[in-house]
């Protein structure tokens, strides 16, 4: 008979997803792909919140995740609008070409 799925496995998956997202943020140079990698990292954090909430018989993790989703949605709207603006200005979304703050 198999045991229940231990919560360590869920945390392990969450750590793996977070690291993959972090690798993407560091190695990719396309601003939109970097944005998607950040969404993946947020998702990994959500997974560990839900895991903790489930194993502690609490709904507070779920409430946290709802707020993270709200913030992610607002961030997506504003961030993508900024990407469109930068594309209009510079003709690219390659992060190495963003030097607008350089005097």
């Amino acid at each position, binding site marked *: 008979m198999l045991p229940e799925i231990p919560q360590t496995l869920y*945390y392990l998956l969450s750590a793996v997803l977070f690291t993959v997202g972090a690798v993407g943020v560091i*190695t990719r140079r396309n601003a939109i792909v970097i944005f998607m990698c950040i969404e993946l990292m947020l998702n990994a954090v959500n997974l560990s919140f839900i895991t903790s909430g489930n194993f502690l018989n609490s709904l507070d993790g779920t409430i946290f995740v709802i707020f993270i989703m*709200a913030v992610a949605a607002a961030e997506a709207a504003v961030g993508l609008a900024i990407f469109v603006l930068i594309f209009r200005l510079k003709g690219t979304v390659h992060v190495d070409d963003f030097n607008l703050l350089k005097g």
Partner: protein
Amino acid sequence: MIGIGIGFKWFIFVVAALVATGSSLMMVTRKNPIHSALWLIVTFFSVAILYVLLNATFIAVAQVMVYAGAIMMLVLFVIMLIHLEWGAQWKRKLSFAKLIGGVVTIMLFLQVLAGVFTYSDAGQKGVYSAQKLAQLGNARAVGTLLYGKYAFAFEIASILLLVGIVGAVLLARKRKD
């Protein structure tokens, strides 16, 4: 999830975890941003399956609707809007910066791993056990908490969303001057 066998649970967990890991790796390594976005949607779906396994059915539905539906639709829309399917592509070239970045992320992973394996299950148990949630209904339990204990935070989040909408419209409109 109540009512399904433990072996089937393990099967679902292993498949969903492998699909999530594999598709997130595909997402990071694809050259075309549209392919990256589609692989990320696959990742979101498999994480939603894990949420169902963790008795968070409401969050699973919200994940599919908000992340896989709304946010990724917006991302795909912007990718197609600014035509970067084939231009400005990523070169799979190993540079010194990428090497340093890889080492740093491996260190990050080891640190998180140390946290995972030294974690002790501290904290008080709450009242919302799987049986109680099944009896009460997940959405109902979440709603009672969200509109009761966390009503103020909920209102603040709605104002944040409103500010996000106004900001996006203001940023993306055509300037007259």
